[in-house]
Each structure stands twice: as structure tokens, then as C-alpha cells.
């Protein structure tokens, strides 16, 4: 499957990593619920590390969409909450903002 690290790019990782990624993904949500920014960063960092260590970076020309998207490692609690509640965190694609 293809995983995007936001701000960094796309990686192709083996499907066998899915369980491990999901586990860390749960930790991200738990950290947000607990309001623990330190734990949030640790979990996000761990997620990104797994992808970087086991994934193969996709070529720039590859047009495949990602199956999973991992937020930046320095995501603030506030941003994370926005992310979990609605789509507010992701800005509209640039052309839709201004002419």
C-alpha cells in the first residue's frame, strides 16, 4: 500500500506493516483524546519512522493516490483536534483560494 507522510512524500510499504501502523495510529488518537502533546508527537514520530525505515519512496512522477496519510510530526494538539473533527485542517487546493 502507499502511505503519504505529509510534507515529505509518498512511500510504498508492505501490507504486512498495516497492523503495526494501525496500532500506532490508535496511539495518536489516544494522545489527542488525553490532550497529551508529547505522546502525540512520539506516536507520530514512531509512525513516520516505521514508514521511512520500511518504505520505498515513490518516484516524483508517480501519480498514484495514497491509501493512508500520516500528519506532520510536529502536529499541534489543536491541529490534531481539527483533523479529527472535520476537514478544517486541510486547506482547499491553492487554485480554489484565489484567482
Amino acid at each position, binding site marked *: 500500500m502507499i502511505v503519504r507522510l505529509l510534507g515529505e512524500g509518498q512511500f510504498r510499504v508492505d501490507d504486512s506493516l498495516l497492523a503495526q501502523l494501525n496500532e500506532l495510529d490508535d496511539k495518536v488518537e489516544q494522545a489527542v483524546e488525553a490532550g497529551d502533546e508529547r505522546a502525540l508527537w512520539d506516536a507520530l514520530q514512531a509512525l513516520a519512522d516505521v514508514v521511512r525505515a520500511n518504505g520505498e519512496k515513490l518516484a*516524483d512522477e508517480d501519480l498514484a493516490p495514497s491509501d493512508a496519510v500520516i500528519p506532520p510530526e510536529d502536529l499541534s494538539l489543536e491541529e490534531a483536534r481539527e483533523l*479529527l473533527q472535520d476537514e478544517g485542517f486541510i486547506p482547499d487546493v491553492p487554485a480554489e483560494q484565489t484567482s
Partner: protein
Amino acid sequence: MPGLMSRLSLIFKAKFSKALDRAENPNETLDYSYEAQLRQLQNVKRGIADVTTAKKRLELQYSSMQQQVDKLDGQARQALAANREDLAREALTRKAAVQQQLGGIMQQGQQLEAQQQKLIEGEKTLQAKVEAFRSQKEVIKAQYSAAEAQVRIGEAASGIGEEMADVGLAIQRAKDKTDQMQARANAIDELTATGALEDFTSSGDDIDRQLAAISQSGQVDDELAKMKSQLEGGAAPKELEGEETK
């Protein structure tokens, strides 16, 4: 509840599928998408240029703050030489506050530097993807039936849309960061613009409270002591003793 990772990927997909609904036949969709991508690419470049400009402006502001620190230090020395320990204390308190703020801003500046680097890489990736889309669209037009073409366009366009949204988000975050830094820098400007030795005992706003806290921390006392001992090492003390009553 679906995990954060997959939810995020769905949000990204939804963001870009809107653009695809507008055209009816695959060839139109292809051309429309490509044009939209070129426009977006321009906006991305503009966004990155804005961030770069804001960062440069901040860098200029830091150096003037650094000068302010030196000036306050000089004022403290002058005040002490003139036997005005109270004024020296005020100048040093202000200096410590500016220094503390500067430290924070510098740290943010380093983070911004890293973000900016990633932005530039993101722009390159985006450019490569748009280019790849341009050649793929001709292949799709020539080789596939309308139904198949629709599927392939959908995939390619959503891959690009995702990249676009990623860079867009990175630009947004970098802009937010420069805004924050700008606000902090402006606060310091206000702090220093009033002049070190005037109007110091005004109402208890945030900066005053910080100043008070720093003053208590002992940093100011330490520096005062250091400056005093430096002065005592010179010729000044004897002269001062001789003129004690003015």
C-alpha cells in the same frame, strides 16, 4: 471509528474529486484538470515566495533586536557608571526580556527553515507530477475507451490533488508560523521602542509581568554584580569615593 490515517486520506480524496465533477467527457476532464493543475502550481509558487519574503523580513527584524540588546547593555553600563543602579537594573531587565523573546523566535526560525526546505522539495515533486500528468493524458486520450479513461483520469488526478493539498497545507502551516513569529517580533519592538530608561512602571501587562519574573530570577542581580566588579576593577571607584557628596 476509522483510524486517523485512513480518514485523512479520505479527506484528501474528497478535496480533489470536486474539481473532476465539472467536466462531462474524459477529454474535457483531462484538459480541465491539467489547466487547473497549472494554475494551482502557480499559486503554490506564489505561496512559497510569500513565505520566503516574510521570513526575510523577520530576519531583518532580529538583527535590529540584537542591536537593541547591545544598546541596552551599553545603557546599563552608563547608568551604573553614573551611580544609577535603579536605571541600570531597568535596562538589564529589559535586555533579559528581549533576549528571552529573541531566543524563542530564533528557535521558531530554525523550524521554519526546515519547513521551507520541504516546501521547495514539495514544489519540485508537484512540478514533476503535473508534467507526468501532461504526458499521461495524451496516452489516455489515444488509447482508452471513455469508461476506462474516466477511471484512469480519476486516479491520476486524485494523486495530483493529494500532492497539491499536501503542499498547500505545508504552505499554510509555514504562513501560520511566520505570522506567530511576526506577532512576537512586534511585541518586542513595542517593548524596546519605548526606550529602556523611560516609562517603565506602566500598567501590569504581559510584558511587565515577564519582566518582573525575570528580575526575580536573579539574572539581573548577577549581571549587575558582574558589571559592578568590572567597574571596581578600573579607576572609577576612587573618583566616585572622592565625589561621594557631589
